[in-house]
Structures are given as structure tokens and as C-alpha cells.
């Protein structure tokens, strides 16, 4: 009864089967390394060895008791039947032997009670174990995510990572909770039933066993057929979901170009295919039950008839027939269940494997053993012959050397692109350079702890760098042990105090990535306030103010100019004055540094920068249009 309808939309469509008997015939998921993954999964179970043994014991006991009961109940029927027969034959004083029957009834009640108690105890214990294991698994995953390099996250979608932490773990959880004990119960039941049936009557057992291959044959046949339909259905469903997502997110464009009809037509086409494969899959897998139940009934009839003849000839007791009928009814159930659990186990192992894959990812380079500490950083940054690229063979920086003395400004110029992200990635060590080194005050940044390194940088960027917490926390982050007074002073200096106070919760307003009532510009002002308070030696800032209204923009400019004084700055520059006055200009295009030097040098070179400068900032204005052509 587990709610599989997780509200998360990142679910892989293929993974949402109904559990239980219906899992039969669905396409199987296979693990790459079944044994290895199973072994690792068992390792998670090993701390609970004792408890699991107890669970299994209880499962075995509970099942055994419930298997024993039909035969006792049958004895009861026999007593009644015999009493009845004697009476019929007119034996005086004859009747049902109620003393004997009472003893049987009493032992039956005891058996049932124990069986239920053990069955409950077993599930009760397993709930604790399963959830603790899953808790640990989630915990391990999360801890791991925090030490994975940024490269890991940049190279896959959030949905992919999320799906492993939620869906795959969920699959493991459900299996631990339900399927594991079910497997034990099924096997014990199967064994027990065969044993009991043999005890009662080898001949009748033979008849039942003769029907068994028929069940297998049908199950296998149906499964074979339905798999194709399920695969088609899954494919159509995937396409349909893709189309829906695409059309809904592109709604504006569809409207603007008046293509609603085409969109609906395509949907119809996929929907038709989904229907065609869907109902067949549903039907084919749906006939397993009637077929099996017919075969069951076939057995039932055969046993009734043969058993009836045997009783009539007094070669078997009537209660035994009754017990046998009950056993044979239960017989196919554990078989079907075992088959479907085998399927579930397969997909569970595949899920567990995906979880382990994350846990096996290469971690970030470890922190230096004895990190150097810069007590009073001056902010001299050097890039010494660094090379870097995100992918093998795609080199963005090749043998790049830059010297930035304390208080100097580096302007990064060029069309928007990966340039500034790369710079932040390298300076803050989200990525490590492939060759060469970056130093701050002469110390390789890899010899500093990441914490200390990142504290040296203040960032005022377009994609606002705020974390989940109150505005106060966000501003105060820069320095430890600051009072409310300092925070307000910094906010005031950043021209942020006013708008913060207009918020209902003021400085206590909680920021989160999803729903925030702050505008882009306001968020940026908060980051400036933070930088003012933190007083970092090095700044990375972004002049582009495209998402800020004109008035805020002016405030921002003022605050930034003040902030930059006396600090080493890396500026994503848009203002001509900033660029011209910069000590070093890095000209970037398509994420690569293509030219480097100061304004004069670069102009003299007559390369990309010169061209850019002339097209962007040529003095003539519209008079000598078109400006772009010069």
C-alpha cells in the first residue's frame, strides 16, 4: 500500500510498476554486476544480522503454523463426518466426538494465534530494519554528494542525481520491507505444502504436480507476449511525457506561431500508440489470473472427483480431502509470487547498483594535510602557466600566466559565455587546473584549506550567490561574531537597508532558491552588503546589470565602485571606464582567453579587442552608422 506516486516528476517512466503479482511480465531491469551489488547490499544488512535471523525465524514459524492448520481442520471435519455416518447407520449413542473435536479446535486456535503473532512480529521488526538501512543509505548518499567534485554535477542533470537518491533508494526500501520476507514465506509455504500433500496422499499430489507444468507454461507464454507490449507502452509513454513537457514549456512559442493544432495532432498520434500498446499489455497480463485460476479449478475438480471416489471407497478420510483441497488452492500462489519477487529483486539490485555507482564516484581532491594559513592576505593573485579545459581535448586556457598585484583590477571582456563561470570555478577551486598553479600571496591555493581560500573572496555576481537562510545570516556570513548593528551598517552602505525594512520580516526574511520575493537587483545588493561587511581582499564582480532596473543599477554602481577601492578585483566588465582603467584585460570568446594585456597594448595589436572596442564603444554614435560595420 506504499504510495508510489511520488510527487517528484523526475521519475523514470519505466520504474513505476505496480508491485506484487502484476509485476510479472514487465520488462526486466538488469544489473551489470549482480553478485557484486548483492554482496554490497548485504553489507548494509550485516549490522542487523541478529534481528534479521529473528525475522526469518518468525517468518518460518508463522508460515509453518499456518500450513499445519488445514490438516488439523480436516481432522475436525473427519470427526464430524464419521459421527454423522455412524448416526446414519443407526449405531446407538453414536454422534460427533465433541471431546476430540474440542481438543482439535483448541490446538487450532493456538496455532492461528501464534501464527498471527509471529507474522506481525516479523513485519514489525522488518519495518525498523528496512527503514534504518534506507536511512543510512540516504545519509551516505548525501554525505557523498557534498564531497563530489563540481564536475560530477555539471555533467549530469539534477533529475538524474535526484532520481538515484529518491527513486532508487525507494525501490530498495520497498523490497527490503516487503519482498524479502515474502520470498522466505513463499519458499517455506511451497515446501510445507508439498510435504503436507505428500503426507495426505501421494496419488493426489501426483495429480496436482501434473497440473503444475501447465501453470508454468502459461505464465511463461503470457510473460513473453506481454513484455513486448509493455516495452512499446513504456516507449510511447516516454515519448508522450517528453512531448507534453516540451509543448507546455514552449507554450508561448506555440501560441506565437499558431501551432496548437500541430502540437495536438502529434499528441494524438502518440496517444493512439500508447493506447494500442497499453490495452494489449493490460489485457495480456490480465489474463494470467483467470487462466491460472482455471487451472487451479481444474485441479480442484480432479481432486474432488478422485478424492471423492477414494473416500467413497474408504481409502482416505474426508477431512484429508478438505485439507488437500485447501493446500492445492494455495499451491500456485507461492509459485507465482516467487517468480514475481525474482523480477523485483532484479530491479532492486539494478537500483542498488545505481546508488552504489554514486557512492563510488571519485571524490574531490582531499584537503592538504597541513594547510597553510594566510592570516593577513594582501590579495596578490598569480596564474602561473595554467592550462584548463572542462573536457579532455577542449582546452580553454592554455599556458596562461597572469600576475595581479594587490589592489589591481582585472577586467574580463567579451561576449557572454562560460568565461566568468570558469574563472570562479578555478579561483574558488570548484575545479582544479590541469597544469600550472594559481597562487594567492605566493601560496598555491591547493595548499590552503578550501574554507580559508573561499573566505578570501567576495562575490558580487549576476547569478546571485545567496544561501538558504535569513537575510541577516546572508549578510553576516562574511564575518564571525558580528552584531546586528554592523549588519545594518553594511546594508546601509550597500543601499539595501531600505528595501530590507520594507519586507514583512525585515532582516529575518528567509531566502530560498525556489520562491523568493526579492528581485534580482535586490539580491545583488545583499551580496554587496555581505562583501562590505566581510571586507575580503579579493573580489569577483559582475558589472552587467541587465536584470536590474535603472535606479537600482545606479545604486549598484555606486556601491560597487566604493567596494572595489583597494582590493584585488576580477571584474566582468561592461563599462568602458572600468575596462580602460583595468591593469589587465582578459579578452574572452567562446570561453577561451584569446587576448591579454592592457587597453593600450590591445588596441595597438589590432586584434579581436580592437575590433570589439570599435564596434561597441566607437565614439561616433549613430552619426556614422551603422556602428557595427567599422
Amino acid at each position, binding site marked *: 500500500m506504499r*504510495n508510489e506516486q*511520488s*510527487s*517528484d*516528476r523526475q521519475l523514470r517512466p519505466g520504474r513505476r510498476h505496480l508491485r506484487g503479482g502484476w509485476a510479472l511480465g514487465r520488462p526486466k531491469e538488469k544489473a551489470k554486476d549482480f553478485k557484486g551489488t548483492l554482496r554490497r547490499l548485504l553489507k548494509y544488512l550485516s549490522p542487523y544480522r541478529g534481528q534479521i535471523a529473528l525475522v526469518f525465524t518468525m517468518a518460518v514459524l508463522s508460515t509453518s503454523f499456518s500450513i499445519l492448520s488445514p490438516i488439523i481442520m480436516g481432522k*475436525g*471435519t473427519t470427526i464430524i463426518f464419521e*459421527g454423522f455416518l455412524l448416526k*446414519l447407520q443407526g449405531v446407538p449413542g453414536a454422534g*460427533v466426538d*465433541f471431546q476430540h*473435536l474440542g481438543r482439535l479446535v483448541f490446538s487450532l486456535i493456538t496455532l*492461528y494465534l501464534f*501464527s498471527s503473532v509471529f507474522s506481525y512480529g516479523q*513485519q514489525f521488526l522488518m*519495518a*525498523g530494519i528496512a527503514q534504518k538501512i534506507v536511512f543510512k543509505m*540516504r545519509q551516505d548518499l*548525501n*554525505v557523498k*554528494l557534498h564531497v563530489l567534485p563540481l564536475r560530477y554535477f555539471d555533467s549530469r542533470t*539534477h533529475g538524474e542525481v535526484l532520481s538515484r537518491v*529518491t527513486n532508487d533508494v525507494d525501490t530498495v*526500501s520497498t523490497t527490503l520491507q516487503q519482498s524479502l520476507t515474502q520470498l522466505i514465506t513463499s519458499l517455506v509455504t511451497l515446501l510445507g505444502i508439498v510435504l503436507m500433500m505428500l503426507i495426505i496422499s501421494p496419488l493426489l499430489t501426483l495429480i496436482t504436480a501434473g497440473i503444475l507444468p501447465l501453470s508454468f507454461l502459461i505464465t511463461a507464454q503470457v510473460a513473453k507476449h506481454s513484455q513486448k507490449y509493455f516495452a512499446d507502452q513504456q516507449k510511447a509513454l516516454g515519448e508522450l511525457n517528453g512531448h507534453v513537457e516540451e509543448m*507546455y514549456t514552449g*507554450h508561448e*512559442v*506555440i501560441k*506565437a506561431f*499558431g501551432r*496548437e*493544432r500541430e502540437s*495536438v495532432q*502529434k499528441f*494524438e498520434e502518440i*496517444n493512439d500508440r500508447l*493506447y494500442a500498446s*497499453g*490495452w494489449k499489455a493490460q489485457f495480456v497480463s490480465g489474463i494470467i489470473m483467470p487462466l491460472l485460476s482455471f487451472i487451479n*479449478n*481444474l485441479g*480442484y*475438480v*480432479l481432486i474432488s*472427483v478422485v478424492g471423492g471416489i477414494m473416500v*467413497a471407497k474408504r481409502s482416505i478420510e474426508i477431512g484429508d480431502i*478438505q485439507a488437500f483441497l485447501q493446500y492445492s488452492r494455495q499451491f500456485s500462489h507461492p509459485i507465482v509470487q516467487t517468480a514475481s519477487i525474482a523480477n523485483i529483486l532484479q530491479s532492486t539490485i539494478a537500483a542498488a547498483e545505481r546508488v552504489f555507482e554514486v557512492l563510488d564516484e571519485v571524490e574531490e581532491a582531499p584537503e592538504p594535510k597541513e594547510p597553510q594559513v594566510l592570516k593577513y592576505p594582501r590579495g596578490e593573485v598569480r596564474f602561473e602557466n595554467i592550462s584548463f579545459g572542462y573536457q579532455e581535448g577542449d582546452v580553454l586556457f592554455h599556458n596562461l600566466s597572469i600576475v595581479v598585484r594587490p589592489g589591481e583590477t582585472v577586467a574580463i571582456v567579451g561576449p557572454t559565455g562560460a568565461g566568468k563561470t570558469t574563472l*570562479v570555478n578555478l579561483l574558488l577551486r570548484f575545479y582544479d587546473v590541469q597544469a600550472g598553479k594559481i597562487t594567492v600571496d605566493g601560496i598555491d591555493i591547493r595548499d590552503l584549506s578550501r574554507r580559508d581560500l573561499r*573566505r578570501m*573572496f567576495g562575490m558580487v555576481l549576476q547569478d546571485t*550567490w545567496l544561501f538558504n537562510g535569513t537575510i541577516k545570516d546572508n549578510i553576516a556570513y562574511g564575518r564571525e561574531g558580528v552584531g546586528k548593528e554592523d549588519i545594518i551598517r553594511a546594508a546601509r552602505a550597500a543601499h539595501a537597508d531600505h528595501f530590507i525594512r520594507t519586507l514583512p520580516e525585515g532582516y529575518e526574511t528567509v531566502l530560498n*532558491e525556489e520562491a523568493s520575493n526579492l*528581485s534580482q537587483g535586490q539580491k545583488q545588493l545583499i551580496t554587496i552588503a555581505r562583501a562590505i561587511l566581510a571586507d575580503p581582499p579579493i573580489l569577483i564582480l559582475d558589472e552587467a546589470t*541587465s536584470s*536590474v532596473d535603472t535606479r537600482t543599477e545606479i545604486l549598484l554602481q555606486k556601491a560597487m565602485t566604493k567596494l572595489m577601492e583597494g582590493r584585488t578585483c576580477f571584474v566582468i566588465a561592461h563599462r*568602458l*571606464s572600468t575596462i580602460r582603467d583595468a591593469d589587465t584585460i582578459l579578452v574572452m*570568446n567562446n570561453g577561451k582567453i584569446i587576448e591579454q594585456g592592457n587597453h593600450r597594448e590591445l588596441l595597438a595589436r589590432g586584434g579581436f579587442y580592437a*575590433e570589439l572596442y570599435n*564596434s561597441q564603444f566607437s565614439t561616433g554614435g549613430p552619426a556614422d552608422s551603422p556602428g557595427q560595420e567599422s
Partner: protein
Amino acid sequence: MLKLRSYLAPYMASVVLILALVFFQSLAELLLPTIMAEIVDIGIVQGDIPFIFKMGIWMLLVAAFGMLCSIWGSYLAAKTALGFGKDLRSKVFAQVESFSLQEINRLGTATLITRTTNDITQVQQVFIMLLRMIVSAPLMLIGGIVMAVSKDARLSLILVFALPLIALTIYLIASKGIPLFKAIQLKLDKLNLVLRENLTGIRVIRAFNRVEHEKARYEEANRDLTATTVKVQRIMAAMMPAMMLIMNLTAVSIIWFGGIRVDLGQLEVGDLMAFIQYAMLILFSLVMLSMLFVMLPRAAVSAARINEVLEAETEREVKMEAGKVIEMDVGKDVGIESKMKAKEVAGTEAIEVRPLKKTGNQLEKEKQDLPLAKGPVNRERELNGKMQSEGALLEFREVTFSYPEAEMPALRNISFAVQPGKTTAIIGGTGSGKSTLLKLILGFYKPSQGQITIDGQDIWTMPLKDLRSRIGYVPQKAVLFTGTIADNIRYGNLEAGAEEVRKAAEIAQADEFISQLENNYEAVIAQGGQNLSGGQKQRLAIARALVRRPQIYLFDDSFSALDYKTDAKLRKALQEVTQAATVIVVAQRISTVWNADQIIVLDQGQIVGIGRHQDLLQNCEVYREIAGSQLSQEELA
């Protein structure tokens, strides 16, 4: 839930038939124990072996009959439930496609996607369960009781105790467990939220050493979820053992009291055996029936979410047409020839299937358009490299617009005119209303006051389709669709031939990178255009607008991802094509706008300046401020 019933109408006959089949199947199931009782009471007691055989054959026939009913029912149920799901999905999708922008924003894209896919699947799944299993439960319950009473009414008194007991147990356990299931869902959502925030904010978290804090937050959510899950699992663990216990004890009491009845000669042994089986059937049906109470609320939630979509307002056009003709009544009438691939120039009809009633005016226009599009003269002209189109006079007359529930209007009292063949640039900060203005022209929103006219006609008096067919829109975020490059460009004009597509790409400076792709124009774009760079997507979006040869071009900050060289080349090429057309460019950079024939400066929804670059520098303070932040002192002089 009930409201969706109307979508069941076409399947009513099937549903009735399924019910009948389930009834017969249940009947067959109920008959078997009775026949068996006959075997015992007559065949065995009297040692009548031929009778046992005869009855055996009867049993087989009855079982086979039950199976056939069941299989037929299963077939019908699959077709009915899936068909119902299919219809509903179509309806919902068509409905969403006809939503206005306002409506889709109000509900939210993410939830609409879930509603179209998961929610419908959920309803469909419950429906099939309902048809296949749960419907048979009450039949079995009633049938079982009837049979049991007919065997021995006195003995049936046991059931009077057993039934309420089992119902009460189910109720007690479920009423404790089910609310917790909801709590689990919420807690799982919470855990996912933390995780998602961890992923999206990973750089911030690391840069600000918030890792420990986030770990603690996650652990708390995880612990909370685990605790609740354990609790609910432990409660639910009681369900099956309790059910089994009650059922088994019922069976035992039947044996005991049945024994007494047999002893008194009031009951036959075979009937006693049958009675036990009926009792089990009855109790089991009750368990099945209780599933209904678990599943129905869940399906009801989904159904309500679907209904909300179906009841939401659609865009005026579609609604209006729905009254007259079919329009969005999607469906089979439109053939499966649905891929965006309309045939080359030949097939105008391919898209003209719309059963939209055309005004005389429109027909006239199409008559003019058609020969233009097809005529050899025109084609030659195009091939010569001119994809020009004649512009239209676009006018804003005192337009004011507020988003629903907004305090302040997004645009206030806007008036201006754009002459054909002229370029108007709109500049201003974020939130100044630039993009909103373009969306008003597209008819995405209706002005609260004032009029927008094209060649003197209010755009709200012409069909949206007609309005939008005049406009080539390049959105801020270049949205592309799965399909080939050519498909995507042709999206602007389904009749465009290969040559036109290529030409448009050339003007948009996309031809070069396309020719470097494998399969060139037939290269497949992945969902959301993930395999293209931002600049490439933008250029394709521009080509898509160009191939439309519209009267009015709307560029919403459409050059931002281009590098300077491409930008310059593109603009030069564009100038030639758009010479005669009406062009509106929204921009952030002064350098983008200073050549425009007319620059409109927006600030907080109002026009604060209108004119050419030099005039504005002198007269408009806001413009000067913007320019001041982007240009040097000398440039301002």
C-alpha cells in the same frame, strides 16, 4: 471524480457488459463449492461414483465458463479503461494547448505536466482495478451471504459477528495508517526539496562553507521521514495478521458450531464444507472492498486536479470558435499526418484543414497571399535572396495593462506608432515592461484600457490566428522543439521549401554552423535544444521568425547570446530583409538601439522618452542614466 463521469459515456455499454460478465464469473465461482457439497453429500455418502464423475464434469464446465467470462471481461476492461484514459489525456492536452499565457502561468507548467501524465495514469489505473477486481467484491459478498444462508441460516449467525469484527479492524488500522501515508508524502517532498536545493545551490553552499549546515538540514528531514515511515509500516504490519486471525477463527467456530448442527442432523457434512468456503469468500470480499476506500480518495485527488484543468478558461479565440465550429475539438478528423513536416511548397491544404469560419476579409487576404507564396515570380524573388515582406502600421493608443492581482499596472498609458519599414527599439531596465509590451502585441494578454491596432484594426477584433500569422516573434529565451533543424525553422512557416529554409538560416547566420553538423539541416535537435549552444539556438529562433515573412518582427532581446562578430553580421543581413517590414527590438544595450528610427525608453511601465539617440541623450534623463552606465563621457558628449 464524478465530474469525469461524462467522459465515460462512450463506454457505458462496455461497462454494463463488464459488470454482467463479472457477475457471471462470480456466480460460477460461487457454484463450485455447492457442487462439491453435492459430491460429498450424495456421491461420497452413498458411494455413487458415476454421480461423482457427472458432478466433476459439471464443475469443469462451470469453471471454464467462469474463465471465459473473466477473460472477456479483462479484454473489455483493458480497452475501456485505457480508452477512457486516452480520451481524457487528449481532452486535457487540447485544453492546455488552448490556454492563454495567463492561464498557464496561473496553474504552472510543472503541475500541468503532472496532471496530463501522472494524474491521468493514476485515474486510469484505479478505474481498471475498479472494473477488474473491486466490482466483483460486492457481488461475491452478497452472493456468498445468500449461498451461506441458503446452506444454513442459523450457522450464518457466526458471520454476524465476524463481518463487523473484520470491518472494524480494517477501519481501525486504516484510520491510523492512512493519515500517516499523507504525512510521509509531505516529508518525502520536504526531503526532495532539501536535496534539490542542495543540487541547485551547490556552488553557493561550498563557497560559503555551508556544507555542515546543509547536511544537518538533510539529516533532520531524513530522520523525520524515516521515523514516520517506520511508524506507518508498523501499523500496517498488523493488517494482514489480524485479517488472517479473524478469518481462521471464523473457520474454527464454523467447524465447532457446524459440528453441533451436524450432530443434531440439521446440516449435512458437504454443506458444512461448502459453508466454510463461502465464509472465506465473504470475508475476503470485504477485505477487497476496503481497498476501495484506500484507492478512491487517491484517485479522487487526481480527478479533482484534472477537473481543475478542464474547467479553466481557455483563450478567447478558441472558446469563441468552440461555440461556432469545432476548432480545438481535436481528433480524428485531422489525420495522422501530424509531424511538423508539412509537405514542401505544394501543400497549403496540409495546414488549411482548420475548420475555422473565415471572415470575408480573411479569405480575401488568403487569396492574395496564396499566389504570392506559390507564384513563380515570387519564388524567384526569394531565391534571389530577398525574403522581404511588406510591413503594417502598428499603433498603441493609451494602452494600460495590469497583470491579474498586481497592485501596479505593468504598463501605463502607452501610446506610440511604428510605421512600416521603420525600426523601433525599446529600452529600459528589468520590470520596466518591455517584454510585456511585446506580449500585448501578440495578444497573449488583453490591455486593461486602450487599443492596439494594426493597420487601423484593433487586434482584439481579429482572430488570434490571423493576428499571430502576421507576426514573427523571437522570444528572449530561444525555445526549440525536438525534431530536425529544418523542422524547427519551418515551424515558422510550414509551407517553406528547403531553399527558403536555407535562406532564412543564412540570414540568421546559422547556415555556417548547420553545414558543419552531421546531416546538416536534417540534424536532430534534442529535447530543449540541449545539444546546441545558446547562440546557436538564438539564431535558429531568428531563422524561424524569418521564414514566416511576417509583417511585423518582434525581437525580444534576441541577440544577447551572440558573439560580437556574428551579432554584427546578423544585423546587417537582417536590415536588408526587414527593410519594408515593421520591426520592434527590445534591448538592454545602448549599442543595440542607437541606430533605430525611434527609441522608446520605458521606466516602471511608462514611456519616459521617445525619439532618436541624440535627442534622448539631451532630453531624457533615464536614457542618459542608462547610457551613462554603458558609455564613456566622450561618447555622451
